[in-house]
């Protein structure tokens, strides 16, 4: 009983000048599964996800969505393909409310015959949709119509993850979603990640926390110096092995 492969990366290679950031890396992400992407700093994790989310482009190799080779040349392309990314620095707008953040760059607006920028916002619809999603994901915010500037790190992370969950139709990539959070806030975000998975998304999770890996991930891919050095099913007993792979000992 294996879940269908949603995203597959084949022999991805990426150079920045003389630096080989990705060297022949392949991986598969399956629907309803969390794939952990592990590696030390500079191992190529961030480069890889930036290539998948359209911030960078791979020099050679290919990326396929549902088995169809797809060219991802911009963040817009990735989003159109159903890939949502929660970046480490969140990409949240401090001066906007959660609903405005949710729909930034893809506002619901009419009439359709006007150029996008000149359309009129359907604010109430976006507000309602947002509170529905936040309720579904059990995200509790002090005030939904306040800007995110006043929210705690965990609440902001929850808004970012929830935003990804609304628009992701296939793949959600999370870059160290718990990095700056305390224990209890981390817990909430991990629950959100599990929920994204249970809703049928292929989740790619970058983290340094082995506990989180064994708890959530069904598979773990380890990168080192731009190369894939291993892929294993993480369990409580092979954490040592994982760490050894990451540091190359």
């Amino acid at each position, binding site marked *: 009983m294996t879940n269908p492969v949603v995203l597959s990366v084949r022999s991805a290679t990426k150079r920045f000048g003389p630096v080989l950031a990705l060297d022949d890396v392949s991986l598969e992400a399956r629907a309803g599964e969390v794939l952990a992407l592990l590696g030390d700093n500079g191992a190529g994790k961030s480069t890889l996800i930036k290539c998948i989310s359209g911030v960078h482009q791979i020099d050679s190799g290919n990326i396929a969505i549902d088995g169809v080779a797809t060219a991802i040349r911009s*963040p817009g392309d990735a989003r159109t393909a159903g890939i949502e990314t929660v970046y480490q620095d969140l990409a949240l707008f401090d001066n906007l409310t959660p609903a405005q953040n949710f729909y*930034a760059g893809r506002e619901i607006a009419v009439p359709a015959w006007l150029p996008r920028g000149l359309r009129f916002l359907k604010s109430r619809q976006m507000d309602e949709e947002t509170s529905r999603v936040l309720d579904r994901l059990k995200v509790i915010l002090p005030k939904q119509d306040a800007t995110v500037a006043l929210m705690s790190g965990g609440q902001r992370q929850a808004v970012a993850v929830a935003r990804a969950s609304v628009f992701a139709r296939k793949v959600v990539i999370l870059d160290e979603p718990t990095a700056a959070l305390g224990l209890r806030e981390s817990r909430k975000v991990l629950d959100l990640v599990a929920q994204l998975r249970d809703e049928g998304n292929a989740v790619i999770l970058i983290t340094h926390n082995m506990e989180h890996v064994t708890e959530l991930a069904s598979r773990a891919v380890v990168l080192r110096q731009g190369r894939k050095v291993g892929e294993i099913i993480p369990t409580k007993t092979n954490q040592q092995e994982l760490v050894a792979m990451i540091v190359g000992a």
Partner: protein
Amino acid sequence: MVMGQSREPAAALSIWLKVLSAGPIAILVGLIVVLSIAAPHFLTPRNISNILAQTAVIAVVAMGQHLVILTRGIDLSVGSNLALATVTGALVYQATGSEVLTILAMLVSGAGVGAINGLIYTFGRLPHPFIITLATLSIAKGTALQLADGRAIPGMPESIQFLGGGSVLGIPASFFVVAGVAGLILTMARKMVWGRWIYAVGGKPEAALRMGIPVRGVLISTYVMAGLCAGIGAVLLAGRTDAGSPLFGNLLELDTIAAVIIGGASFLGGRGHIGHALVGAVMIGVIRNALNLLNVDIFFQLIAIGVVIVLAVEADVLRTYLEGRVRTLRAARLQ
């Protein structure tokens, strides 16, 4: 435990934040109350009408400036831009005698300089709009002096004179122009996708790019709008003085930036609305008018406005600091 120390310190800080954001209006009201006692002529209909007329140009141009400041930018060229627009208008009127063409020429001249600002800023990949708008400040001023041969060109059609200096039922016509422009910009900024994008670009430019917002187009549009507002200001000023002059608009860039900041918009971008620009413009108008009524030396007016700018910027810094505190306290409470 003192009673005032509430169980949730974040809530107390939130109240302070609200007080801060209401500050400019409160100060303006306080200013008006004090001045109406100190200067008996201050609150007469005639003087109020005067203040409105004197404030109109700053208010219109400040509304354009506020859009630019929302995107973390600055437009130093608005004063020269306005001067060039009045000269262009005066020359077009001399050549054609057409009222419509004269108004159109001023608006196009203003928007054109704005477009140059925006295009060179974005496509020239400049790190900050300061330099390019400083350059167009000089270029527009030079062009205006050249075209007008260094002198004022008298003569404006009656309709423009009416817009700039006429009045309806004792209310200056320029007031209606300001109100119309304010309504238009308010609608665009608050109800349309374009406005949402301006706030997003000002809030976090990198994020806006990642979310697929056409950042360059948004930036260019704000400079075009700032230029267009300078063109509208040119119509009002040329109408009031019945002339076009390369010497108009001196220090207008400072007045408009001051108006936006004094009014309570954030210099750090992403925060503020049209009301801030208007409140700030009226505040500058009121301070100038009152100091005149009280026979205070004109040099002191510059000092007073400078001091108010410092206070306003400090209020913005304080607001940012308080927000940080609220966030930390909320996070701590969740642990």
